[in-house]
């Protein structure tokens, strides 16, 4: 089966006043139709840049190399006309700030209908009817179609964003911190909705968040990014419970399990701060903060290496335990 999304050795470099800022530095993964992948990491690790790169939403002048194949088409070289067709209909993005993504002076129903009118050449009437159906599917009261964004609560606005993302039946949805600003209970509602929709419609989902626990709960696979690269990639529950890379371990420990006596009155943090993308440490970029750093870490670059079948980590300490079925790791797009 052809992967829905295949990213191969992606590099994204922003041009800023301080010179070149490498935000993504060699990222590869692939996603099958109906598959769910979580991308975790802290501010500045490059995770949102990946989302923007997939739909070529990066600022002009940004240098992008590598390959992004979306449903068999190369996103980086496609014509602008084709790209317009792919946005919304092939893949759509749900961003974090729903308030800022919605037009404050247009009614909700009109806004959901807009991509439908553009892409499916439906009449306004038919498109607004579809919009109302979509609203019902995401659990919004349909009379809200006549409301303006400011009349909705944060959770409702996020549902509007999801309805818009679904409007043209895309095969891929990228959710970039889509639930981060929401209250726990509203977040639970929205996550439940995303999970159901993805399963029912066989949509591929790339979910981006700093919250490893949310990703582990929603996605089947999990990638942890640090300084523009994947440092760990594997089955999400296993990675969350027993990460191999020391950074991924620290990140999972930062989200306490309520009820776990080991974490009671014992918050886990990591000394130091996430690195500045414009000034990355040599060798393994995590080595200045690494609790188990070795002498060679500041001089040796380390790529993802198989840790288990279907599971890789980029750390010199990781030993290859995938011997019996090491070919499965190769199949994940890492060569």
């Amino acid at each position, binding site marked *: 089966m052809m992967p829905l999304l295949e990213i191969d050795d992606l590099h994204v470099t922003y041009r800023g006043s301080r010179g070149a800022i490498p935000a993504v530095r060699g990222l590869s993964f692939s996603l099958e139709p109906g598959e769910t992948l979580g991308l975790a990491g802290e501010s500045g690790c490059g995770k949102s840049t990946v989302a923007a790169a997939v739909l070529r939403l990066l600022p002009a002048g940004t240098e992008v190399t590598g390959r992004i194949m979306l449903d068999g088409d190369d996103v980086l070289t496609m014509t602008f006309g084709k790209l317009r067709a792919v946005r919304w209909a092939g893949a759509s993005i749900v961003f974090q700030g729903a308030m800022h993504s919605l037009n404050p002076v247009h009614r909700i129903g009109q806004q959901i209908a807009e991509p439908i009118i553009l892409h499916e050449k439906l009449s306004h009437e038919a498109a607004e009817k579809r919009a109302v159906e979509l609203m019902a599917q995401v659990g919004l009261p349909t009379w809200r179609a006549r409301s303006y964004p400011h009349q909705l609560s944060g959770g409702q606005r996020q549902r509007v964003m999801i309805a818009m993302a679904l409007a043209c039946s895309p095969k891929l949805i990228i959710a970039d911190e889509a639930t981060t600003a929401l209250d726990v209970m509203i977040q*639970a509602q929205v996550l439940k909705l995303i999970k159901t929709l993805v399963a029912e419609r066989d949509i591929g989902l790339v979910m981006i968040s700093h919250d490893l626990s949310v990703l582990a709960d929603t996605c089947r696979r999990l990638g942890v990014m640090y300084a523009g690269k994947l440092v760990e990639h594997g089955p999400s529950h296993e990675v969350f419970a027993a990460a191999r890379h020391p950074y991924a371990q620290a990140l999972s420990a930062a989200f306490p399990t309520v009820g776990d006596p080991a974490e009671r009155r014992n918050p886990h943090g990591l000394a130091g701060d996430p690195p500045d993308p414009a000034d990355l440490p040599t060798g393994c970029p995590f080595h200045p903060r690494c609790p188990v750093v070795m002498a060679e870490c500041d001089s040796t670059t380390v790529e993802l290496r198989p840790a288990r079948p279907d599971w890789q980590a980029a750390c010199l300490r990781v030993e290859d335990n995938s011997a019996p079925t090491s070919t499965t790791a190769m199949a994940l797009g890492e060569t």
Partner: protein
Amino acid sequence: MSDANNGPILRAEGLSVRFTAPGGRVARAVDGVNIDLAPGEILALAGESGCGKTTLARTLLGLERPTEGSVSYEGRPLRYSARALKAHRRAVQLVLQDPTGALNPRHTVYDAVAEGLRIHGIHDNERDRVAAALSRAGLRPPEKFFLAYPHELSGGQRQRVVIAGALVLDPQVIIADEPVASLDASVRGEILALLLRLRDELGLAAIVVTHDLGLAWNIADRIAVMYLGRVVEDGPVDEVLIDPRHPYTRALVSVLPNSTITESIVLAGEPPDATQVPRGCRFHPRCHVLAGGSAAEAGVADQCRTEDLPALITSDQRQAACHYVAAHIPTSTTPTSPSPA
């Protein structure tokens, strides 16, 4: 100070704060809350946005005047003269959520920390006091940070500067509103560890306002869960979060990752707004125990819909404001069954 060892250091009694919204509607932001904070205790004030937890914290600091009830510090009721408030805010310090917004970008770290001393007219040993506060907040060596500006610091360091600004006045209580919500996950734990260490080393009591139950599990001794202006469940963290009783607390705990409650209870709808507090139990329109029929089986469904629950009293024990809990768990200390029969 003499009675500080046995009485609560900070207490709220029958506290209500009402705001008049445009159009004359009255928002009952805090609606009858009793809270005690013991010296050296860390209390988590948990709940969703709009539940009144921030208003309650501001009222405890004297930043809002209660419509009803009172705040007392070391057994003495808080007075609202400018002088009394100034003294109160020296002893009870606020730490804000967003360290970037809380710091003046044009003030150095030294000035930011010394500002409190200057406001309170403490001029002796300023340099030593600032250095001591910075190093207690984990910025060492402190001299290295004196002349730094906020933009030269990371998010975690900025939050430490804000905490140092609170510590420099030797407070007895810190009130921290979402102290780690704007920080990166890996930095979060370090700041929480700092709050725990300050309690252990300086005996500092703290109220931590948060929507994050994991944070409460990480550092708090006691938790008060708020819903629509009321505390609906209150007790030791180990008891409340492992075996929550109030249906609202149960729902909040159930949607946590790896929750002890296996079946997740996702409440429908949004928290109602404080201008329209429902009749009866304020949680009943969203309550799954009522909707699922369990409350009817226990014979309390009518009470849930029509009978408001009294505010929880201050107590060392755990308590929940719920008709079903009162009928179902007779051993629990609830206001409706004060004496175990």
